């Protein structure tokens, strides 16, 4: 049975080269128009260099996050990302405490203290990433606890430890839990590299993005195999356990670089949402990575734009003119969610709307073919060759509206002729109907011959299969049945031609 293949081949011929050209031109034009509109819009809402740097920093952070996110989504470990976003907190706190005590002991000079703190933060994140993964696995294996529950126990516990440590050692760690949780991109952008306008956070996030890109290109093959099938990757000599821990460590390090700008909870949005959006749009890993990078950057831009424009519009209407802007990080998550929703609705292949349309198209073509078959059988049995719409509807067993649409479609393609309010077959339609009825009766004969079904059980199956039997299959069925001229009900099987 290769009926789905037949449908696919029809589908692919429809997307012809000319169509692609048109689509490319149109989208290019749309992009240009959009860019011009955007410039105007940005000027209106008072966009300045500061906003640009905010978007650049946020976009770099989001893109850096979306790379490990792709693999988390493919490995179905997205909630591990959520857990890591929480557990980086104790990692950072412990690292800061260590740096502080080293400075107290005189091992680190006050001048280099800040850079030590940054280094300690990264190392702490790497360690905590692996530690959370290992702990989760221990709880899972040692206690035979279900995976997501093990994850829940571990990350809440570690997070609670982090919160308590912050409370107890506040004067040593200098962390505001609020800033860890929600991010303060608005102020991190002010902290620039000396003598330039470039924010320090942008440099850090850019470097992490670069490192992640490098890792992905270097280990593309290994990552791909272990993401799709851990068992196969093990048989090919790739240690999927090591890959898992490495992914956790890299994710944690990326999170920690991004949390300053986006905040550790909202980092989850940047980790998972772009990858999931891309997953709705493509099946190829390389395209998936490219799309999720683009989605991440776009949601950073849209997020900041809406953060500085939307609140004043909405809240002035509500009667609070004092509200001027809102959290960029929060709006970035919302924008990512919006992009995800758009992809889920309008995605060309997996989108809800395209699925509904496909369904409608298929059911319309099936009704149309049913009409043809019905008219042909009427011609065979009686002299009444024309049928009114309500007769067609009643005999096919659908509603009036779809039947009407299908009949109009047949009339437009010249397969039926309209006479007054009734429809009858035209010569090309008769040929089409003949092939359809042939398929139906061949299938009935085949079922009767090989499956030993009683005659009254054949029609149901044949009525469903007839729409999917192409010329090749009909030929094979005919060869299989040798020269059967009649179907099990004693009706003639029409010839393929003439």
């Amino acid at each position, binding site marked *: 049975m290769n009926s789905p293949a037949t449908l696919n081949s029809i589908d692919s011929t429809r997307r012809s080269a000319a169509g692609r050209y048109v689509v490319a031109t149109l989208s290019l034009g749309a992009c240009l128009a959009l860019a011009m509109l955007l410039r105007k819009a940005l000027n209106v809402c008072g966009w300045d260099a500061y906003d640009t740097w905010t978007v650049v920093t946020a976009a770099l952070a989001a893109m850096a996050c979306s790379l490990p996110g792709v693999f988390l*989504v493919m490995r*179905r*470990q997205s*909630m591990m*990302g*959520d857990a890591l976003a929480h557990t980086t907190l104790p990692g950072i706190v412990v690292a800061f405490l260590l740096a502080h005590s080293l400075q107290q002991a005189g091992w680190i000079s006050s001048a280099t203290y800040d850079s030590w703190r940054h280094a300690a933060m990264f190392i702490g994140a790497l360690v905590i990433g692996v530690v959370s993964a290992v702990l989760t696995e221990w*709880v899972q294996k*040692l*206690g*035979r*606890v*279900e995976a*997501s*529950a*093990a994850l*829940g*126990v571990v990350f*809440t516990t570690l997070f*609670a430890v982090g*919160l*308590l440590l912050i*409370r*107890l*050692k*506040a*004067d040593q760690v200098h962390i505001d839990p*609020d800033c860890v*949780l*929600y991010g303060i991109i608005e102020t991190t952008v002010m902290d620039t590299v000396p003598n330039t306008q470039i924010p320090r956070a942008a440099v850090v996030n850019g470097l992490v993005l670069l490192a992640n890109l490098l890792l992905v290109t270097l280990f593309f093959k290994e990552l791909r195999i272990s993401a799709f099938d851990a068992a196969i990757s093990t048989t090919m000599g790739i240690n999927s356990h090591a890959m898992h821990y490495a992914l956790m460590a890299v994710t944690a390090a990326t999170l920690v670089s991004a949390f300053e700008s986006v*905040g550790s*909870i*909202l980092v*989850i*949005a940047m*980790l*998972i*949402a772009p990858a*999931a959006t891309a*997953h*709705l749009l493509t099946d190829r890993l390389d395209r998936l990575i490219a799309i999720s990078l683009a989605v991440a950057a776009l949601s950073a831009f849209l997020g900041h734009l809406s953060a500085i424009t939307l*609140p004043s519009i909405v*809240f002035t209407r509500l009667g*609070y003119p*004092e*509200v*001027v802007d*809102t*959290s960029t*990080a*929060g*709006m*970035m*998550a*919302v924008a*990512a*969610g919006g992009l*995800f929703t758009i992809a*889920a609705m309008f995605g060309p292949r*997996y989108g*809800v709307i395209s699925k509904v349309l496909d369904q409608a198209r298929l059911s319309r073509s099936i009704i149309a073919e049913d009409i043809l078959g019905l008219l042909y059988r009427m011609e065979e049995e009686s002299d009444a060759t024309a049928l009114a719409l309500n007769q067609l509807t009643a005999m096919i067993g659908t509603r009036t509206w779809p039947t009407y649409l299908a009949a109009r479609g047949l009339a437009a393609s010249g397969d039926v002729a309209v006479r007054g309010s009734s429809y009858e077959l035209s010569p090309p339609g008769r040929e089409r109907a003949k092939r359809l009825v042939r398929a139906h009766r061949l299938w009935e004969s085949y079922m009767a011959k090989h499956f030993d079904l009683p005659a009254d059980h054949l029609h149901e199956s044949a009525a469903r299969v007839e729409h999917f039997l192409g010329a090749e299959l009909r030929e094979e069925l005919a060869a299989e049945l040798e020269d059967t001229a009649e179907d099990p009900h004693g009706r003639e099987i029409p010839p393929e031609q003439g």
Partner: protein
Amino acid sequence: MSSVEKRIGFALLVAVIYLGNAASCIAEPLDHSHSTRPPARSLSRDRLEWPALSDVKRTLLLRDYNTRIVAIGTTMLGAAAGIVGVFMLLRKRSLIGDVVSHSTWPGIAIAFLVMERIKTDGGKWLPGLLVGALLAGVAGILCTKLILRYTRIKEDAALAIVLSVFFGAGMSLFKAVQYIPSGSQAGLNHFILGKTASMVSADVWIIGEASLAILIVIGLLFKEFSLLSFDDKFASSQGWPVFRLDLSLMLLVAGVTVIGLQSVGLLLVVAMLITPAAAARFWSDRLGRTTAIAACLGGSGAFCGVLLSAMFPRLAAGPVIVLTGALFFIISLFLGVRRGVIVRIVTHRRLKTAVGRQHILRALFEYLEPHCDPAAPMSSQLVNHIVSANELLPMRSWTLKRLRHLLRTAEKSNFIAVVREGGYRMTNRGAELAHRVVRNHRLWELYLIEHADIAPSHVDRDADDIEHLLAADIVESLERLLSERYPHMTVPPSPHAIDSAPGSTIRQSTS
């Protein structure tokens, strides 16, 4: 099924009545600044201040009115969360609580704005905020379900997306609300990390009554929920309203989460749902007992957490409650009597010892079998032979070291006796057990040949694994089969040749 629907309806009615009652008991907006706790002293900030003995006594005896009501309310919350958590754990949906708690955030902010519009300065009204949180939490669950139903996104990613996007929306709204003068003073940020210490009695009333309502609903629908948790497909095939039951369970999760926001905060409330339930699973396999234990663990964890944080003002209650729960979890993980690590290790070792003992006895039996007279009773002949370790070595694929070890253990428990240096003899007890083990082994082999259609040369290995575990009723039915085949034999002959060292000699015992 109308009775189930009636019960769901009744349960919801009870919940509504209770919530309404809780709402009506607070006629006017609350004053959150009221707190009996002294402000944390800022001297010696990096050290835990040990409370004075009188303070400890005061706290432990619940003399302090505020501590008392907070402890009671939080304990009830912990118990309710533990019970709901068991069902979530069994349905493998533990992390949905995390989604609900993060999703409540925009609901709180929107509820604040709405109430502020209705009545100036009315935005802090707690029941209103909680209703907003509940609605947003349910919306979060529905979004997850929609994503799972209509897209190809898998559950983990759907959870993560809904969680972070809702939280992001909440953050944005929260930041905007901060610009509004009454908004920045409303203390909305307390919902993120909890503020157990400054709860007042009216807050506790809400928590207590809502927990009670949740407990009643679960009590009424216990049977339905257990069916749902173990086999929802079976439940739906039996005509139970699975979707509605699932929805009511989700509502309960949302309810627990929302009332937990106040005490532990939305980032940690999921721990109250997961940890006690996961810990209770180590203590029992029965659902009724597991829920009871989860309620106890959740309740006592919350209680201890509140008391600890009352004694040490610098320890925030939320994290302490979570850590107490984690401590209970670790204790249960090791000490739990049903699935705890120690119990499992002990049973495993016991089984291993039993298997080793049975192996050695079967080896002895099969080694001696060819030399015995099949007509005379087997057991009296078995005890008369002396065998050395070297002779037993080819009977199984074992090392001499392992074999010696097994012989020593078997001797210690008096199944075999050492006659002289390197010579072993079965005791009566050993002969009896050997008899039974070989019988089981051969019965199983017979069964495999007869029913599973396995070649006689292949059955030995399979029977080797299962012989130690054959239950009495299986043995009985196999015996029936046997008595038809070999009416006069107590141990059937082996269906395949038994390898042993050729030309070995058997010595008669001198005794």
